[in-house]
């Protein structure tokens, strides 16, 4: 297990930088991780990250399809907000473990 320091707080992450304990996450931390990924966070980013965090908390699997049912944004916008690999980037910034989903 590795540790990283964001916004003055030391958090536990895996070797790829994903949070092990989502409760260590704060919005200030998210802003710093996003900066590493080259993303400036907006309200929309935070809204969809809240959706992802809630799903993880409930133990529900994450998928790209679920974004369309989030009521927050559609998949196309999701790809625009987190360019490249959106589900991976969004979960990393949202402080939840890396999703183990193929879809």
């Amino acid at each position, binding site marked *: 297990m590795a540790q990283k320091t964001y916004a003055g707080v030391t958090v536990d992450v895996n070797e*790829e*930088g994903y949070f092990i304990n989502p409760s260590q996450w704060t919005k200030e931390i998210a802003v710093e991780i996003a900066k590493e990924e080259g993303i400036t966070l907006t309200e929309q980013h935070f809204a969809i990250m809240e959706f992802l965090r809630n799903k993880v908390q409930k133990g529900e*699997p994450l*998928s*790209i*399809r*679920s974004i*369309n049912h989030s009521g927050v944004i*559609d*998949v*196309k916008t999701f*790809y625009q907000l987190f*360019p*490249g*690999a*959106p*589900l*991976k980037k969004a979960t990393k910034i949202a402080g939840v473990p890396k999703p183990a989903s*193929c*879809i």
Partner: protein
Amino acid sequence: MEQKHNIKKINLICAKGAIEDVYATLILGNGAVMEGIETNIFFTFFGLDAIIKSRMDKLHTAVVGNPALRLPGGLRMPTLLGVIPGMESFTSWMMMGEMAKLDIPPVSEFLELIDAGGGKIYACKLAMDMFKLKKEDLWENVIDILTVGEFYERAGGEDSHIIFT
């Protein structure tokens, strides 16, 4: 940052139209898009069924000549059972139901997810001609109808891979 040598481009060719053939293509394609990999999917021969509006969400799986097909519980499905009228529809319906439980979308929705992420869907010109299909028969977001040569032109580039499912 996370990986040393990433795949940059994936080009999938789908030539068969059974549920498992089409879904193998769609899962690999969508997975590539989700990883931020540039993705082209080329549907040809019976694979065209996956992008024909009237057929895409009514695909079947083979119940005859499919030795890996098993009944619920794990017993092999006897080939003779497969010839019972309605068995193919029933088995296909069961399979789609099992996939839906895993949050795997119907073909049309799956293609929309790929499209939303920037994946490109193409149809094969020769197969279209052979089956007497027209552009209007195709799903509206199919980018183009291509010859083999045109497909290869689009498939080029550094770290580009062609996968025949």
